């Protein structure tokens, strides 16, 4: 290797820390605090979802039946796989295998882009069906025997669906950007077993965004199938 582990560590130690250990603990701790704020950020939407789902249960079930479960389930699987490759990538950085790290993170990005692609297909479907809140919103159950019970309340379901998945997708886009940056730095051999906290904290972020989807999927796609 061109630069030794020790040189990388010395180069990256910021002036206000006593040693690498303090710096690494601090940045990881900071990321956990940031994720706490993210939980509260999504928490507002989850609260709104809970309130309206309990008030307008039937309308929410009808809205939920418009979801493409197979695409949603595929996306869930894609994200879980991406979390695995991410975790392995962090491990590779920690054990000093920069090439392996780059490969694993590239796969992670591919999974992330795959998720966004599938999400775009779903969005397109909803858009063409007028299942987008606002003046052009129009809702049909698709079954003439069961007209929609309350399209206005189903519109609230779709408002929340777009807001929650949209915000999640935005986080995915940011995540893809962050992982790309780690890959570029990885190609420049910027990380070593004594300095890999950027890889670690981007990994934490990535897992968090996956975890949000793990909650979004059942809440939005899997409301009772017995009704309607």
């Amino acid at each position, binding site marked *: 290797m061109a630069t030794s582990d020790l040189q990388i560590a010395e180069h990256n130690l910021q002036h206000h820390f006593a040693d690498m250990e303090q710096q690494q603990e601090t940045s990881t701790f900071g990321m956990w605090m940031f994720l706490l704020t993210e939980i509260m950020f999504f928490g507002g939407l989850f609260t709104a979802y809970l309130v309206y789902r309990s008030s307008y249960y039937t309308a929410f079930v009808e809205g939920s039946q418009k979801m493409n479960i197979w695409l949603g389930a595929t996306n869930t699987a894609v994200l879980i796989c991406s979390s695995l490759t991410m975790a392995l990538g962090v491990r590779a950085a920690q054990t000093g295998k920069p090439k392996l790290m780059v490969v694993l993170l590239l796969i992670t990005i591919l999974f992330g882009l795959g998720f966004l692609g599938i999400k775009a297909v779903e969005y397109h479907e909803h858009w063409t069906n007028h299942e987008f809140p606002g003046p052009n919103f129009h809702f049909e159950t698709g079954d003439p025997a069961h007209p929609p019970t309350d399209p206005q309340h189903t519109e*609230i379901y779709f408002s929340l669906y777009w807001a929650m998945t949209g915000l999640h997708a935005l986080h995915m886009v940011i995540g893809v950007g962050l992982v790309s940056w780690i890959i570029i730095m990885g190609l420049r051999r910027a990380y070593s077993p004594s300095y890999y906290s950027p890889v670690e904290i981007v990994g934490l972020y990535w897992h968090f965004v996956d975890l949000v989807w793990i909650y979004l999927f059942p809440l939005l796609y899997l409301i009772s199938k017995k009704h309607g």
Partner: protein
Amino acid sequence: MATAVQTVERENYLNSNYGIKSWLLTTDHKRIAMLYLVSITAMFWIGGFFAMMIRLELLTPQGDLVSSDTYNKLFSMHGIIMVFFFLIPSVPAVIGNFVIPLMVGAKDLAFPRVNLLSWYIYMLGAITALTAMVTGGVDTGWTFYTPFSTTYSNTHVIGAAIGIFITGFSSILTGLNFIVTIHRMRAPGLTWRRLPLFCWSNYAAALIMVLGTPVIAITLLLVALERAFNIGVFNPQLGGDPLLFQHLFWFYSHPAVYIMILPGMGVISEIVTCFSRKRVFGYEFVALASIAIAVLGFVVWAHHMFVAGISVYSALVFSLLSYFVAIPSAVKVFNWTATMYKGSIRYETPMLYAFGFIGLFTIGGLTGIFLASLGLDVHVHDTYFVVAHFHYVMVGGMVMAYMAGLHFWWPKISGRMYPEAWAKLSALLVFVGFNTTFFPQFIMGYMGAPRRYHAYPPEFQVLNVLSTAGASILAVGYVLPMIYFLWSLRYGELAPPNPWNAVGLEWMTPSPPPTHNFDETPVVTWEAYDYESQPQEEVTVGH
């Protein structure tokens, strides 16, 4: 004239680098604190201008100076600017930014670049909100209640909401930085039980910033989306629930008043102990009271909604929980008083402001208990009683504490002493002006005068004129410090490292501090506020 003129000027954070770029790209917490000081001072004067317009309109019972629409915009913009762009960043982002790393013996905050980012985010949010105000204003009140804000208001609600949304992230990043710094960057020997109370109270406020601000962010984002795309999350016509908005809004905005007051309480703890020459009475209780206020603050929000149509039973619970906040608040007030008892008190400007804080915060806090009781709240809800209560806590409390802190740490910040006589005069003006402004509003409110109207029945004129006269005195009290602080930068007496003979790591480094704060990392071997055992002795840095 300066007595000890140094022939070779020592390098410090102010003279280590020159030029606009060295300020705009700095990652030094002390310089970032100065950037914040300049920005929030500008916002304070803008918000103050709106306040003076309100007071001028209310000189006469008729609505003659401005139309009712303009009046609605004036009090909305006054509230938005003062709450989100002045009070919330005031003590944390200026004083906290400057002294917390010094107090914990660190070279900087944990994330210096994030700290700079937070200032840029603040500026972006401030410019967005100001643009919305210049291009037409906003008239929803600082509370943005739906469906008025989402459907009926014809003003720039989206711009103002996005401005606050953006600024929220600067507050989140500041809070995050404080929490991580206090956890991870303390000097050797500086245990939690030796931590200055200013750090404790900013830590508590930072917890609220980190946990509460994201909720207001998402709520205001939903308001903006609802206005832009006509979706129905909060609009009752579409089945949405306006009460949900109020719950989400106050879930942040009630704890937010503790973001505003807690750092102020920290300032008072530092000053009372220093100018009484005594250890803070019941240090542990004062420290834990900050945490208790932060925790309790999250479970009292619905006391803003007693007349909004929430269930009687939940109102009962929220009323009771709100009373509980009085306990840690009273612990602080009693402990400050007990600290002064038999202390050798010096009546210098920071202490005068601290006296003002303790008295006025007590009145503000006690009237808060009136508002937390279900029956009385129905009577005084949405009257000037609420306005007076809030301003007693926020202006009489927080702004006083901010002024106290600025005077206390000004020698450290600037390396110069401010003129003591002028400062005492302005402290007196602020105290008299403040009480003349807001005490009449308690009476008016109790007599039933509703807030947020630009005209009022003639029998309230005497009280309103008093209030406006007081506001003018208050304005002079705020202009004076700005003048003499600026004056002192050039002509003030050179400040020694520890002009107040205070304990605390920030006083063990030169004034102004060098860029890296300490020449060598201090090692703490003494208890916090150890005024009695080493009354005059200079404590040295290092071993």
